[in-house]
């Protein structure tokens, strides 16, 4: 998996993910990237999932872990551009109700200020 971080207005960090978030390939990397942002005091994180090709239960577990660690530090973690299959995987485990999910980047970024 490839990750890149860009900062947009309001100090929102957008994490663009590309590739797989699966066991042994991307799952730990996701956690480390988020932990680094949290350690740097970055509290508003938007994960852009548009180019994520595959996720498994490990990847889902890491997403949940990231959500919890950001929230525990008083931050917000939201998701952008969920591919349909990832949406389904989050839906069947009822996690879709946990995450704030957006289809529009400007709308997602603006939501952090609310």
């Amino acid at each position: 998996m490839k990750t890149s971080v860009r900062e947009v207005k309001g100090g929102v960090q957008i994490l663009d993910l590309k590739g797989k978030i699966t066991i042994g390939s991307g799952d730990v990397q996701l956690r480390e990237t988020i932990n680094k942002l949290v350690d740097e005091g970055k509290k508003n994180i938007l994960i852009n999932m548009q180019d994520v090709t595959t996720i498994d239960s490990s990847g889902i577990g890491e997403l949940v872990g990231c959500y919890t660690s950001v929230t525990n530090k008083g931050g917000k973690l939201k998701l952008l551009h969920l591919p349909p299959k990832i949406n389904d995987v989050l839906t069947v485990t009822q996690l879709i109700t946990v995450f704030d999910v957006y289809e529009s980047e400007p709308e997602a970024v603006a939501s952090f200020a609310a």
Partner: protein
Amino acid sequence: MGISSPRPSDKTGPIRMSLSSRFENIEMAQHLCGKLIEGYELPEETRHWILMALREALANAIKHGNSQDLGKRVHLEMEVADHTLKIRVRDEGPGFDPKKVADPLAPENRLKTSGRGIFYMKTFMDEVAFRQVDGGGMEIRLSKKLLGATQKEEKRR
């Protein structure tokens, strides 16, 4: 590693293989499973879920069963018979009681970072069965009908 040649027909013999406990092997097994079912006109989504269930079964065996011990193997068998995909995954670990696996939908488990693999297998396949193997190891059996396989997806919507 012995692999009999996969052919997309209903009369193909089982593919049997013994894998080292590395996550890298999951994709190779998924590729072979994809070949095994490629003769069936399945919705792309159904194909994806089958391969995800296989991924979860193998990941479970490698991580929880064999604890990534490279001295332990994961035994995989896949075949199509009676238009049904049948998968068996056996590890060499201590085994577990499937009844004691926590429900990932329970509110207290919703935010746990693990414990969803078996749930996904059950969601995406027609049958999932567990068996403690004599002489050690846990076996997971998965099956999925390949004709009329869209019905379950339609029901979920």
